[in-house]
């Protein structure tokens, strides 16, 4: 068995016992199927009489659809039918991507297919249903649309100008949502500050680029009035509700099956028009319908993320103590707010989380979210964090430079002390169980800043610009009902687990948390086996099927381990209790003298025990042998949700060192360090891999990824050859270390770990680049930091 890497949570019992699996880096045996080609992804599914669809999508960012003629397309080989909004709207009701708890949101109704006006390049307008995808695509070319192209409002910065193109005329302007946070008195504090620094940062749009694209198979069974949806989503019960609601179906007769999912990162948790159309088509024609997005469709219709311009101001006294922070953030979300989570949340998180690690007594934040004619923007891994962390940490570095203080020192004197929790973000959001001081100390220990400083000077003499940065951050994890539910969204914040002992002695576990590769199944198995006292291989897990798992929220916002894992723990403890009660009756002894180890009920004081299999056989097949009145329940269930606070936060400290080639502008990441405090680590290896994968996605946003648009709203790089994602060669090894502060909200003590890397990497990369550029009095303020931007900054072009 692998080394135990973390301090054990005392609530979980000793590690020095059989079947102690929590805290161990065990391999994901269940995932080996992927190495044998045995994954079951949506596109791997073929059903009898299944048809395929291809969507006619708007080639324009903004255009009136004067007429659509589908007659020729309908005659094309293999075509079953061709639908426009008229036919789809007969079966599917429109939706609105607004929630009620964050002030007025102004997104209008959206339908699966655009009706009179198309508002982004890629918006679905018509759909061909055919025997094969190829035939459906052939017929697309025969659909005749009379388009009247309209001027597009592409630039978010002019979206509220008086002469802007108004995207939804009934709204009068392009404002979707705005929020102001005002704590203390920033005006007064800035006047009292010894130094005030300012900056404005730009974050381009990028997107998730899951290697498996979005996909759905909808199968309407008229005889049973049942809709079965095979969907590569993250939140099956949410989809169950939404499909029932908008297609007017009995919710209990909608089944969502999410088997293997090829990456999600938040991209696959939203309701997409084309997927709703597919469901409607199946209802209409009574056949299974498959839609798998091709890569062009992924780039132009998967949600995009970021797209922010943020100004910030920070005031410090001469000792480096922060007195005030002010930010003003603008974000463009495309023409509609996504359903049902809304596209306000990224900006909301920027306002909530800026300055979160620090004591900032005076804080003002303004967020403005506007419509534009681009692909809809919504929540993607580390929602809002990259912007909040980058603006905070850029300002802190600037303040340090201005008052000539070390970048680590200024952070340390401003941290909310580790012993001062519970506490609050500058915005007022509650915080607890965090460790910025200890995490920064550990980061500095593993980084060896002194050595880095020496190298920086030596590199400079050789003409190489080397720089480093350190940052601290908070990560939103384990959300409570105060995140979405309170605003009226049917998104469960409670999750459930059901665990049973079967006649063979095997354990079956089901959970409402889903798997997209993080290792959900593996950690659930570890928790169940650990808490029950059975071997890992005796636990079988079912996830991702609304007919077969308990009800719950699914996987998003880094909630699987902390919420779903706690439900599994509680259910396993209940089942163990039940088993020991039955065993005590069979063995004619006191329950407290018994325990379970390696699938056997043992007498703690020695003497013969019985196996779980024997006990199960007695209960199921020879129940008459049990003493009268024995409660022989071998199925236990439990639920868990976070109460009383909006989120359980995790914290991280990150550092990196970069070198810049002054001739090419190319940035090389020499080293990257991350210290994470996610509380109990159920499987430390999997936590580290979440951090690493997250950091690399953050590096993608910081250095490479951008959805490039021309001024007419045409996406210019919607292919995998043109849109730059992080590939192996450019990426560094990442050194990960941990501080452990368990969450007091649960027995298991786990917080989330999925998004910190993506939230923090853009800030630390940018700070390191600017630390390097400072040697030549240059600076970059725009992500992705391309070689071109570097060369411009240093005056080479």
């Amino acid at each position: 068995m692998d080394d135990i890497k973390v301090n054990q949570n005392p609530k979980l019992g000793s590690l020095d016992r059989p079947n102690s699996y929590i805290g161990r880096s065990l391999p994901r045996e269940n995932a080996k199927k992927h190495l044998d080609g045995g994954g079951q992804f949506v596109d791997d599914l073929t059903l009898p009489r299944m048809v395929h669809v291809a969507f006619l999508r708007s080639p324009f960012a903004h255009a009136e659809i004067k007429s659509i003629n589908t007659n020729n397309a309908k005659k094309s080989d293999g075509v079953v039918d061709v639908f426009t909004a008229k036919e789809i709207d007969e079966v599917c009701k429109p939706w609105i991507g607004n929630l009620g708890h964050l002030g007025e949101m102004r997104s209008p109704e959206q339908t699966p297919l655009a009706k009179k006006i198309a508002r982004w390049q890629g918006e679905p307008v018509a759909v061909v249903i055919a025997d094969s995808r190829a035939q459906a695509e052939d017929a697309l070319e025969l659909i005749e649309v009379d388009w009247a192209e309209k001027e597009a409002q592409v630039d978010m910065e002019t979206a509220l100008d008086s002469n802007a193109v108004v995207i939804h005329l009934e709204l009068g302007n392009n404002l979707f949502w705005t929020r102001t946070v005002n704590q203390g008195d920033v005006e007064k504090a800035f006047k009292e500050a010894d130094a005030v620094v300012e900056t404005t940062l730009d974050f381009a749009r990028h997107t998730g680029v899951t290697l498996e694209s979005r996909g759905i198979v909808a199968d309407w069974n008229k005889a049973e009035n049942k809709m079965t949806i095979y969907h590569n989503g993250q939140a099956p019960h949410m989809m169950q509700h939404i499909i029932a609601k908008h297609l007017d179906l009995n919710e209990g007769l909608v089944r969502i099956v999410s088997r293997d999912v090829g990456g999600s990162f938040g991209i696959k948790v939203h309701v997409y028009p084309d997927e709703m159309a597919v469901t409607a088509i199946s209802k209409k024609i009574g056949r299974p319908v498959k839609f798998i997005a091709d890569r062009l469709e992924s780039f132009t219709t998967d949600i995009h993320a970021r797209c922010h311009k943020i100004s910030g101001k920070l005031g410090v006294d001469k000792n480096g103590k922060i007195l005030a922070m002010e930010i003003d953030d603008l974000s463009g979300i495309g023409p509609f707010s996504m359903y049902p989570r809304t596209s306000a949340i990224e900006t909301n998180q920027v306002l909530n989380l800026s300055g979160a690690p620090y004591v900032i007594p005076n804080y003002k934040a303004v967020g403005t979210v506007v419509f534009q004619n681009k692909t809809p923007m919504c929540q993607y891994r580390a929602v809002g964090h990259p912007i909040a962390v980058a603006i905070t940490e850029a300002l802190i570095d600037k303040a340090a430079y201005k008052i000539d203080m070390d970048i680590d020192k200024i952070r340390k004197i401003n941290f909310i002390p580790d012993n001062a929790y519970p506490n609050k973000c500058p915005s007022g959001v509650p915080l607890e169980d965090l460790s910025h001081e200890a995490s920064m100390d550990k980061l500095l220990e593993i980084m060896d800043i002194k050595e880095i400083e020496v190298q920086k000077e030596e590199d400079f003499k050789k003409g190489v610009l080397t720089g480093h940065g350190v940052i601290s951050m908070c990560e939103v994890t384990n959300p409570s009902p105060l995140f979405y539910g309170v605003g009226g969204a049917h998104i469960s914040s409670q999750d459930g687990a059901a665990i049973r002992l079967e006649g063979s002695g095997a354990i079956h576990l089901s959970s409402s948390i889903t798997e997209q590769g993080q290792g959900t199944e593996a950690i659930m198995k570890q928790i169940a086996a650990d808490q029950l006292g059975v071997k890992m291989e005796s636990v079988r897990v079912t996830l991702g099927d609304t007919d077969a798992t308990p009800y719950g929220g699914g996987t998003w916002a880094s909630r699987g381990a902390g919420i779903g894992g706690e439900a599994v723990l509680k259910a396993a403890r209940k089942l163990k209790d039940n088993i020991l009660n039955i065993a005590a009756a069979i063995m004619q002894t006191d329950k407290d003298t018994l325990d379970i180890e390696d699938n056997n009920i043992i007498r703690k004081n020695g003497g013969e025990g019985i196996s779980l299999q024997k006990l199960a056989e007695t209960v199921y097949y020879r129940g008459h042998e049990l003493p009268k009145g024995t409660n022989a329940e071998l199925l236990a269930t439990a639920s868990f949700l976070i109460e009383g606070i909006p989120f359980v936060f995790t914290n991280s400290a990150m550092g990196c060192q970069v070198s810049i080639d002054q001739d090419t502008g190319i940035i090389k990441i020499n080293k990257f360090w991350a210290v994470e405090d996610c509380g109990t680590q159920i499987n430390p290896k999997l936590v580290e891999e979440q951090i690493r994968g997250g950091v690399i996605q953050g590096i993608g946003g910081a250095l490479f990824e951008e959805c490039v648009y021309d001024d007419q709203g045409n996406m210019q790089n919607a292919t995998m050859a043109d849109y730059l994602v992080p590939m192996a060669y450019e990426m560094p090894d990442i050194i990960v270390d941990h501080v452990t502060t368990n969450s007091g909200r649960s027995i298991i003590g786990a917080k989330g770990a999925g998004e910190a890397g993506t939230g923090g990497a853009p800030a630390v990369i940018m700070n390191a680049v600017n630390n390097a550029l400072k040697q030549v009095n240059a600076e970059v303020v725009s992500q992705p930091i391309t070689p071109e931007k570097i060369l411009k900054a240093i005056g080479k072009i």
Partner: protein
Amino acid sequence: MVAKNLVNISFTVNGERFNNVNVPSRQHLADYLRSQGFTGTHLGCEQGACGACTIEMDGKAVRSCLVLASQANGTNLKTVEGFDDEMMEKVKQNFLKHNAFQCGFCSPGMLMTTKEILLNKKKLTRDEIRSEISGNYCRCTGYQSIVDAIEECINEIN
């Protein structure tokens, strides 16, 4: 699909014979293999950029989305379902040990690239391994665990 656009070909997949099958002339090999149930071959971009569909054709790694099915005539193909020899079992164990995949969508292509690296029997540095796999996109892992796994394979096998 009309009959005149069919091409009659013969080939093997993982040793299984496909004799005189008719494939649409415009269909790429990945689509054809998937239609025959070899769903371990994944499609990520269909333009040769992501590497997910990489399979073995007559001993060489090819992007099966860039090869027409008809071009497979007379060849021996191997897909991830057929990677069951001793060396590939070792590779899989190392991928599992290092958690060199998360969602598993890139794994078939990554395994094929690894196989080619190992067949070249060269001792590679971590940077060189990174260069070798730089044609295979993985969104989940950040690549380090994949490099770890391949490094261990090279050490074991060479």
